[in-house]
């Protein structure tokens, strides 16, 4: 705990210090060093200090208002892993900005400090203080490129979403906290408060239909901020839900579980469908965050449902699966955002339809993006598979016990989300990196082997460590962070399975090696030629004729037209032999924003304009309102 405090002091110190450094390069260098080194310490600490039983100085007042327990440490581990790599990444990424970045770095530190605060607060006022600090600092970070109109628009939506979320949480906390404002274990008879909490945290986590700020804010922010926001900040919503679940006892657990599961399924499936229709790389990734939050919620909901059925072991596995997926998603989503930042930095293109063939020019970025794509699709050998496997495992074993309904829905929705995510990421990867460039991308593009590459490779390594050695990594993670739950006897089975999975990887690797040798031997006696792609006899193929991102997913978007509802623009062609150029384009819609929020907002605007006389601008009138309100409150109390 004490080391966490020291880290906080360092962060606060440097946040103010960074306001005074004039030179941008020096600023970036110092801060990225400080951030990565102290985050690295943080990673070590969060794994070690959980064992720390005694304290160096009596600090009862700290323990009264702050948690230092398993959940906080686990989520802090997630935070520090990401801030470590983002710290390294930022140094070279931020070179593209010519304007002074003092305020940017100040907010960056503030964001991290406030997230540590949120994870440790035991008191609702302190919690909300940090929660709002987090909202504002991230708002300023999103607004880094405030010259662009779209960024301002996105920031505004983000600000409103944060405001509403905090309001909901304030209401909920006023009911469940004790007289000092501390969180307490509480028994709830009705689910109303729970609904408030779910909505309040959901606005941060960004599940559907509360997601609309996410696909706006993520693309507008700089890539390192998107990585932090998507990797860690939206997980604060998940943390809140997990924390509240640990506090609230209720007689209708089953209902709560069903609600979370239902929300999770909706966000997972709709998230991936909206992502499929997107052409813009960072928007696509933002929608995938929604999908993955959905998967985490599916696991959480499943764990609550299984607990209410009395299947405690399986419920725990689902719960640990949810937490592991939180970590995994943080890792691969930050990886993807960071590599997309590298792509946009070098090519200045963010539209998938205009990219292509970058694999040869940017091999390391290409490799990182490939690993990130495979991991987020939940494919074996990487970490995403391990957490999804735990969820599947819990659900399948519950079916064996005779509990069908929700488990089957969970399994099938995970399956459909998995396959669609695979379609979406094969689309994204191949549109960016494979084939030929679709637009004349400058030939002098070269990948600089700098800190950006290094930070991505670190995250790739994390993906592989968890993916290839699930036994060791899960045992380490869970026995360190959740020793209370971690009774090795319960886990023998799933750990044994992880051993088998690692073993099968060994088999597969050796097969690949053997068949590679076979291929080499066969190639030795025959000639290898290099030529053009076979174009079926057509002599002049142009790169524009390649299958693009939207043509790749066209069958899927067509099938789900009733949900995705992309707008397509094309002229009517009347000639038999068209002589001039025609253009066809599709534009994915923000369905919820246009279909639900905009009509409601318009109605509200109309309604409130009728009451505009209340806001007359006269100070005396406002004082009168305050007076009336006070009198009313006094009368009410009497």
């Amino acid at each position, binding site marked *: 705990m004490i080391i966490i405090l020291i880290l906080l002091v360092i962060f606060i110190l440097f946040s103010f210090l960074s306001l005074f450094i004039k030179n941008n390069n020096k600023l970036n260098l110092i801060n990225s060093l400080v951030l990565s080194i102290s985050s690295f310490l943080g990673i070590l600490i969060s794994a070690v200090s959980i064992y720390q039983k005694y304290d160096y100085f009596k600090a009862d007042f700290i323990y009264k208002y702050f948690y230092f327990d398993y959940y906080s440490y686990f989520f802090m581990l997630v935070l520090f892993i990401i801030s470590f790599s983002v710290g390294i990444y930022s140094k070279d990424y931020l070179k593209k900005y010519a304007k002074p970045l003092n305020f940017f770095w100040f907010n960056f530190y503030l964001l991290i400090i406030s997230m540590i605060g949120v994870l440790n607060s035991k008191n609702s006022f302190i919690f909300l203080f940090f929660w709002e600090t987090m909202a504002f600092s991230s708002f300023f970070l999103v607004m880094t490129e405030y010259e662009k109109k779209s960024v301002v628009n996105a920031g505004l939506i983000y600000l409103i979403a944060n405001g509403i979320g905090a309001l909901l949480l304030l209401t909920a906390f006023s009911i469940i906290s004790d007289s000092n404002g501390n969180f307490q274990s509480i028994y709830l008879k009705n689910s109303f408060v729970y609904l408030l909490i779910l909505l309040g945290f959901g606005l941060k986590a960004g599940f559907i239909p509360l997601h609309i700020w996410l696909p706006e804010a993520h693309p507008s922010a700089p890539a390192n901020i998107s990585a932090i926001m998507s990797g860690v900040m939206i997980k604060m919503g998940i943390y809140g839900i997990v924390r509240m679940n640990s506090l609230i006892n209720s007689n209708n657990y089953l209902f709560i579980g069903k609600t979370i599961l239902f929300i999770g399924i909706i966000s997972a499936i709709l998230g991936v469908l909206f992502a499929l229709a997107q052409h813009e790389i960072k928007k696509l990734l933002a929608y995938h965050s929604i999908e993955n939050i959905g998967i985490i919620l599916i696991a959480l909901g499943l764990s609550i449902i299984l607990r209410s059925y009395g299947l405690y072991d399986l419920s725990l596995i689902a719960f640990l699966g949810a937490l592991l997926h939180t970590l995994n998603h943080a890792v691969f989503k930050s990886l993807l955002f960071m590599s997309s930042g590298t792509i946009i930095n070098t090519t200045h293109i963010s539209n998938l339809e205009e990219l292509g063939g970058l694999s040869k020019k940017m091999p390391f970025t290409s490799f990182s993006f490939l690993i990130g794509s495979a991991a987020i699709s939940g494919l074996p050998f990487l970490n995403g598979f391990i957490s999804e496997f735990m969820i599947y495992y819990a659900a399948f074993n519950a079916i064996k016990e005779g509990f069908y309904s929700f488990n089957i829905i969970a399994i099938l929705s995970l399956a459909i989300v998995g396959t669609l995510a695979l379609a979406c990421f*094969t689309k994204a990867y191949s549109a960016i990196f494979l084939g030929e460039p679709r637009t004349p991308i400058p030939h002098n593009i070269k990948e600089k082997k700098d800190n950006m590459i290094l930070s991505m490779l670190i995250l790739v390594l994390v993906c592989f460590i968890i993916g290839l050695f699930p036994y060791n990594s899960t045992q380490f993670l869970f026995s360190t962070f959740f020793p209370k739950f971690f009774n090795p006897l319960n886990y023998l089975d799933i750990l044994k399975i992880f051993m088998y999975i690692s073993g099968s990887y060994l088999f597969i690797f050796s097969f690949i090696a053997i068949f590679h040798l076979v291929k080499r031997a*066969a190639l030795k006696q025959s000639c290898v*030629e290099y030529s053009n792609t076979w174009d079926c006899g057509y002599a002049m193929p142009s790169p524009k004729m390649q299958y693009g991102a939207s*043509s790749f997913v066209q069958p899927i978007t067509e099938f789900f037209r009733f949900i995705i509802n992309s707008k397509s623009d094309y002229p009517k062609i009347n000639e038999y032999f068209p002589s001039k150029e025609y253009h066809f384009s599709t534009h994915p819609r923000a369905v919820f924003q246009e279909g639900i929020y905009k009509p409601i907002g318009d109605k509200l605007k109309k309604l409130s304009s009728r009451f505009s006389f209340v806001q007359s601008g006269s100070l005396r009138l406002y004082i009168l309102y305050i007076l009336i309100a006070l009198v009313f409150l006094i009368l009410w109390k009497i």
Partner: protein
Amino acid sequence: MENITIFFKVIITLFLPPLFVGIINKVKALFGGREGQSVFQLYYDLFKLFNKGIVYSKTTTLIFYYAPIIIFSLIFFSNLVMPCCGFSGILSFNGDFIFIIYILGLIRFFIILSAMDCGSSFEGMGASREAWFSVFGELAFFLSLIVLSSITKENSLYSIFSKLKLSLWTTNSAVLALVVISMFFVLLVEASRVPFDDPNTHLELTMIHEVMILDNSGVDFAFMVYASSLKMWFFASFISNILLPSGELGFSYGFGLYLFSMFLIATIIGIIESTMARVRLLKVPQLLLGSFLIALVAFVFQVFKG
């Protein structure tokens, strides 16, 4: 005994799958009133391809180079895990079928990327369809596994199939039959056969699998063709384990029954291919949704029975 069966399994999965394709082709030829190619034709083709040179497109990257080997190794591994004639695969654990389904997902990932790597719009078409149709295929596969796992109350391929005895057909006939039908659809779509795709066509705008391997040549093409026959062998083994469970018969008889059931499935595929036309491409999702619904009906039967 264990070692011998594993040895047998490796030998079978390495050498028999091309014969499976040969039988299908022979049946098709007989139906068409032709003598047809020899059942061993694919062996000759593979041998020929192994000795041929390779042409790589300049557009391609390392993915294209490594994909055939990776795909072949993965599907070879999946075949080794599949239990047959009452003996477990090389490994068996609780939830191994989830692992295998995701291995199949990895195969799809690589085949799509290797197709897209060429930058040809033909191959893009095939890749797009592969990505889309597999959504339904995987759903039906998962649902069939859920049904099997709830019939046998087991959660690994080996324990499911060792509990799935011939006598179960007397009590669970409807459910098992529906699962077999649904899995047959999955087999046909995953192996890209009629009515979803026609393996005989080249250069048609409606192909799926054949078009994805258009740019592969020489050894790479051999691995791809071999892998696709192994994939068919994998799904056929799965169906044969339900259709004619051979676990109770001991090794030699069980093995005979296994080979017989594989032969039967190949014949059925041959008959389907010679009596049916390929459905229109736009109707394929509906047909696949149908196979998912069949599995769903099986599931409903299973739940309301017990």
